[in-house]
């Protein structure tokens, strides 16, 4: 049911873990729903310098988290904010219909992390 790319990210998740002294933390989802992600980012020169994820959830949840870290790394914060759940799913070669909503939160998680970083900066741009 999953594409090879989804399974590859599930089998070999990229950037799994926590950045201990993160500049921003984003948490989305909820264990009651069976899906939860935590994205931590390190920001340098208004760019996503490092990003890691932790995920509780199904194959789609893990794969979207993994790939969103790859997509975000090195991007400016504005560029990273433009990553959507839809573009994440596309990057994975598609997700099963019933996974489009429930487990496809990774872009939201990244955005939350960036927002968290920005709010800590007092709403400034860095």
């Amino acid at each position, binding site marked *: 049911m999953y594409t090879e790319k989804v*399974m590859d990210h*599930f*089998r070999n*998740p990229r950037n*799994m873990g926590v950045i201990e002294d993160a500049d921003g933390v984003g*948490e989305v989802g909820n*264990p*009651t*729903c*069976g*899906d*939860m*992600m*935590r994205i931590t980012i390190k920001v340098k020169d208004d760019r996503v310098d490092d990003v890691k994820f*932790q*995920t*509780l*959830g*199904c*194959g789609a*949840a*893990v794969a979207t988290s993994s790939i969103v870290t790859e997509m975000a790394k090195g991007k400016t914060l504005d560029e990273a904010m433009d990553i959507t759940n839809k573009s994440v799913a596309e990057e994975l070669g598609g997700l*099963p219909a*019933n*996974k489009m*909503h*429930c*487990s496809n939160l990774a872009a939201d998680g990244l955005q939350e992390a960036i927002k968290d970083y920005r709010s800590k900066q007092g709403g400034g741009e860095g």
Partner: protein
Amino acid sequence: MQLEHMIYMDHAATTPTDERVADAMEPWVREQYGNPSTLYTIGGHAARAIEEARATIADFLGAHPEEIFFTSGGTESDNWALKGAADAHRKRGRHLITTTIEHHAVIDTMEFLEKRDYEVTRVPVDSRGIVDPEDIRKALREDTILVSVMHANNEVGSIQPIAEISELIKDSGALFHTDAVQSVGKIPVDVDQLGVNLLSLSGHKIYGPKGVGALFIRKRTRITPLLHGGGQERRRRAGTQNVPGIIGVAKAIELAAETRDGEAERERALVARMWMGLQERIPDMALNGPEDPSLRLPGMINFRVEGIEGEAMILCLDMNRVGVSSGSACTTGSLDPSHVLLAMGIPAELAHGSLRISLGRDNTETDVDYFVDVFAPVVKRLRDMSPVYDK
């Protein structure tokens, strides 16, 4: 497709077709193609073979051959029993009783009937996943026409007190249906001992073919056909019979009759060994379903693992060539966790993190030990990845 290396532990989802079943079916696929409703020789062969199959199944269930009707599987049997009984007795009443842990074939049919002017009472279960017969009795009303309680649950394996329930409701005038899709072939199923009017079974859960099942309809039970048409199955279930499938399900029953009790004991021991092994290796997990193995299907065990999610476990196990299912939503394509686990009072996050293992004839101690060996690191890996588990 390295199937020969696969360790299959999802026998509650479906079973491998026994070779002897496949062999028994083959001539009816290839040479004996006659339509059992026709008059010439090969039609007669098929008709006779079907009646022999019917007798085999009747015998196994303690029923009469005229009480066995072939269907396309457990789902059709359940739909027929419920809709057929509801329709036939609609003038007498519109009230139906069931439980909160039925298979979707019953749940969804009940929901449909609810939208068509029937009223449904859903009796809850205890934390083990077992219904209290008294609660069924209390739910009875003047206008109750049908009670449907599954014999053994397909997610946690809990066995329901069917005989006790039938004892309590037998004077009510309501028909009593049991979905015995999971229990047939695994524990004794006798229609008189259970005291039911209607009983569903399915071929592919008992090492038989997919797409064929049966409904037991006790003599003098009024039920409207679900499939109208040709005169097959004594005018109660139309459609050219699936001859090879029927031969296959009868052969499967024959084999089950030979091996059931010994196999049950063997599987109970395997499950005990597995559970012991898992508990030694993995912290923060617990059993879903009755602790007492005699209240559970022999080969079935369902447990919850804190901090991780079911589908991820299944995928990781598949990477290790082990096939199992989960109580998690993701397996069914819905977003909600298992209605059975929730009905037992298990919190949603733990229901999401539950796994069902259902062993079968082909599993060995080696398989069980292998499972424990690969599952422990899977849990560790997923817990490492999890934002909610940090013990």
